[in-house]
């Protein structure tokens, strides 16, 4: 006979505002098999948990139903409390009275009735629950960091410095990411390269870090602690063991007119190239799509000039497989290009730039060596306009969110411009100035007050070119929407930060969620910012949403801490919510007939055939067998089984039928 305890939480007023919690508890008390039912203001609080624990001990409960928030929120909390009171944690279930009831319905009788039904459903389920024991699996103590920007670098170094092994995969020929493209950083105006490059070198030299540049994740299998990653090492056409990085090939390469990705198209590079002088590793790759030899069959100049014979044209892409225990996604972001904006000329004006392009102009390592000059004619612009929120906060353009970093970098750009062009005039069109952050507001004030940047609150409707100038037509909303026209020499658009083009594909490879804008989704917006909803896969930096460097670094260290925490145990305790094939003593053995349809359904190759043999070694029966280390508990096999021989612990047929029947029977 079951002795179930039902505990109804008010969640402050979150539940009790629309649900009559006392009534739910009273009705639950009348349900068959319910020994004890009560309600309390905050069930997840210490006194609330003590209430449950005491009831378990005093009443000898055989099952617990907590009617509170989503089980995705507090199921572990209450299961732990039950375990502490000596009740098997898997005999505790949660009924979602908050997210699925009180928050989505009006206060009335039906809402309370629904809450009672939801509780009843779980009471009937928990009666069928069986005590389960956690599964222990070993952990491979090696982390995979995807992306070699500042987020990946920080995470990799933190993990490696804690004594754990790291594999870093970067798709470009060099690590460094967007931060290596930046000139100075806000709000201190210290040089980006100066603070970044030492860390890049540290990554390359760290004994615990294996760095694969020009490489991408091809495939990811397995589960927390036991992933198997297949990595594609794109053909570099250069043998890095022989290459000394002398750079002779890059100076002699005849294909010199390829827009440099690192310089955002403002400078040119060769077909065999290192992206920038401070690249790590400082060895070139051949861009086959732009190489004369690969396209036309002859040239081979680089091979002729290479003093060590490192050029190898026939090297194919290579694939390596690594066992890893955790993944950190740090793939970063991108910015919209100017051709996204019809009203700003569809990208046809040479001197209408993105913020990232302006960074390259302002950078000492950039195409103009840090002088602000117009790409069209090399002149120094005397009048420059910055347009904040280019694309951002504009639902009509499909980017309703705030890109967060633009207010600050626009202030920085205007400031850098004023520092470099003393007689120049700078204008910033803005919607609002969002300068939340330590010393951020002060920084913007400095741009306005000390450096004389003209801030105009209003949008720009159009830019057109006239006589070598760009006519910027906008409005000043603080002067009653007075039309403003500025004849600018250069315009910089603070284009919206968007997800990387390959983000969606990568997310699907790893089975992690992403949002409507293809940014990776964190497991909880507040309490699990660096976890994904796939255990063992963490994320950090701007691949989750646009964010600045301090925030990225903080998040990267957070993700690293999670990985180090995971690796601090040699075994991982896994939830026993997995499939099992029924077995019993001879002569029945199992209702499984050995058709192994389940094997075809399993996405994890967790099911194998097993032959049950008699004492004389002859095969008595062939049955399916689930490997508990590999099974992830999706239950697809259960629905496939024709003889109902395979079932899922925690979501068994018995339990699910009990739930459905409880719900519909009056």
């Amino acid at each position, binding site marked *: 006979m079951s002795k179930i305890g039902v505990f109804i939480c008010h969640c402050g007023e979150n539940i009790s505002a629309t649900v009559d919690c006392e009534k739910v508890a009273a009705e639950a008390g009348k349900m068959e098999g319910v020994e004890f039912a009560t309600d309390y203001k905050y069930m997840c609080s210490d006194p609330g948990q003590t209430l449950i624990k005491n009831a378990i001990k005093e009443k000898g409960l055989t099952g617990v139903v907590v009617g509170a928030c989503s089980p995705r929120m507090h199921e572990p909390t209450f299961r732990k409390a039950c375990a502490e009171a000596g009740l098997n944690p898997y005999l505790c279930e949660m009924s979602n009275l908050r997210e699925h009831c009180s928050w989505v319905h009006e206060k009335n009788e039906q809402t309370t009735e629904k809450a009672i039904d939801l509780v009843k459903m779980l009471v009937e389920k928990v009666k069928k629950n069986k005590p389960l024991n956690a599964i222990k699996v070993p952990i491979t103590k090696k982390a995979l960091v995807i992306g070699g920007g500042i987020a990946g670098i920080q995470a990799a170094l933190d993990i490696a410095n804690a004594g754990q092994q790291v594999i870093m995969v970067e798709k470009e020929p060099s690590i460094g990411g967007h931060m290596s493209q930046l000139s100075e950083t806000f709000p201190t105006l210290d040089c980006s390269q100066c603070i970044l490059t030492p860390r890049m070198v540290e990554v390359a030299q760290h004994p615990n870090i294996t760095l694969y540049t020009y490489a991408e994740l091809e495939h990811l299998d397995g589960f927390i602690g036991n992933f198997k990653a297949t990595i594609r090492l794109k053909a570099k056409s250069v043998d890095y063991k022989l290459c000394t990085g002398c750079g002779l090939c890059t100076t002699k390469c005849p294909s010199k007119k390829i827009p440099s990705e690192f310089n955002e198209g403002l400078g040119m590079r060769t077909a065999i190239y290192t992206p920038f002088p401070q690249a790590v590793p400082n060895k070139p790759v051949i861009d086959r799509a732009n190489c004369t030899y690969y396209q036309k069959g002859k040239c081979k100049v680089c091979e002729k000039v290479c003093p060590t014979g490192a050029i190898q044209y026939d090297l194919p892409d290579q694939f390596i497989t690594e066992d890893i225990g955790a993944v950190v996604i740090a793939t970063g972001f991108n910015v919209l290009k100017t051709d996204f904006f*019809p*009203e700003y000329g*569809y990208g046809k004006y040479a001197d209408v730039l993105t913020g990232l392009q302006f960074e390259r102009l302002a950078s000492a390592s950039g195409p103009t060596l840090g002088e602000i000059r117009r790409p069209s004619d090399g002149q120094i612009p005397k009048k420059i306009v910055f347009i904040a929120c280019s694309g951002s906060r504009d639902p009509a353009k499909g980017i309703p969110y705030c890109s967060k970093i633009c207010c600050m970098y626009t202030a920085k750009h205007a400031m850098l411009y004023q520092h470099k062009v003393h007689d120049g005039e700078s204008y910033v069109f803005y919607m609002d100035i969002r300068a939340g952050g330590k010393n951020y507001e002060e920084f913007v004030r400095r741009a306005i007050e000390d450096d004389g940047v003209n801030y105009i609150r209003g949008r720009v409707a*159009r830019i*057109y070119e*006239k*006589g070598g100038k760009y006519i910027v037509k906008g409005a000043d909303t603080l002067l009653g929407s007075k039309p403003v026209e500025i004849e600018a020499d250069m315009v910089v658009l603070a284009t919206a930060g968007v997800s990387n083009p390959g983000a969606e594909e990568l997310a699907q490879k790893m089975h992690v969620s992403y949002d409507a804008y293809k940014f990776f989704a964190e497991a909880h917006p507040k309490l699990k910012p660096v976890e994904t909803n796939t255990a063992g896969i963490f994320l950090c930096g701007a691949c989750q949403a646009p964010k600045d460097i301090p925030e990225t670094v903080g998040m990267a260290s957070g993700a690293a801490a999670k990985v180090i925490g995971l690796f601090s145990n040699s075994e991982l305790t896994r939830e026993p919510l997995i499939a099992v094939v029924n077995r019993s003593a001879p002569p029945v053995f199992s209702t499984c007939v050995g058709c192994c349809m389940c094997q075809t359904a399993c996405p994890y190759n967790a099911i194998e055939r097993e032959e049950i043999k008699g004492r004389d070694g002859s095969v008595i029966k062939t049955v399916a067998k689930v490997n508990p280390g590999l099974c992830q508990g999706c239950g697809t096999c259960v629905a496939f089984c024709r003889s109902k021989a395979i079932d899922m612990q925690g979501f068994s047929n018995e339990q699910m039928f009990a739930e459905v029947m409880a719900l519909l029977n009056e």
Partner: protein
Amino acid sequence: MKKLGFYPGCSLKGSSSEYAQSVLAVAKAFDLELTEINDWNCCGATAAHNMNKELALSLSARILALAEKQGMTEVVVPCAACYNRLTVTQHELNKDEALKQRVSDIIEMPISGNLQILNVMQLIDKYVADRLEEKVTTPFGHKVACYYGCLLVRPHNILQFDRLEDPQSMDILMKRSGAEPIAWGFKTECCGAGFSVSRTDVVAKLSGNIVKDAADRGAEAIIVACPMCQSNLDMRRPQINEYLKQKIDIPVLYITQAIGLAVGLSPKEVGLQKHFVPVEFSEQH
């Protein structure tokens, strides 16, 4: 000979009869037969939809329903305002079955909403495009500023015609007629049509900016496809010149007039004599 429906609207019957004349002449030159919708009415442009949505929709819907009833599947609508109203109306009605029913009750005619509504660029593009170059006898060898105005491209999500801020279709057709279209900044700026009668000073300013930019960039003609644009830029030229304090005499031609000249029609056939700003071009240009 391809047969199409034709909705002239009020402007083409009055102040811009030369537009109708040139459209019909060019159509004829390309073996297209345009049949006017019988018993058509005002499309309700500019005023009606600001006052009474149902009335505005019903006015346009009646035209569409008549065209359907008269067996037309495609209707050529040269006036940009008419083109805009008819397209928007069909979109609104197709979006909302109940509204369509209500409007259908008001006009006492069924309406299916499957009519193809073509502006002049779309007409030429669809039926003349590949024959245009071979028909050109005297290339229109002038620098031209193609001016689209507001009604041809907005609202973009409904009209789905060309690029919103920097349209190209007129430029492409003019180029194929032998002209040299200039890149300029006022392609879709407002000419001030709404104030055409009440505030001519505003028109002078707005249209003035357009004419000046075209002139500054060396255009020898402004090419339009909208009667309001044409009349503002052409008829208001004295006020414009007064506002600009500068005498600009570049003519404003309908695209069909320019193409007409290129394919060998005479100035008279395309109605050039009716312009306020004198047009010096002839079939020999």
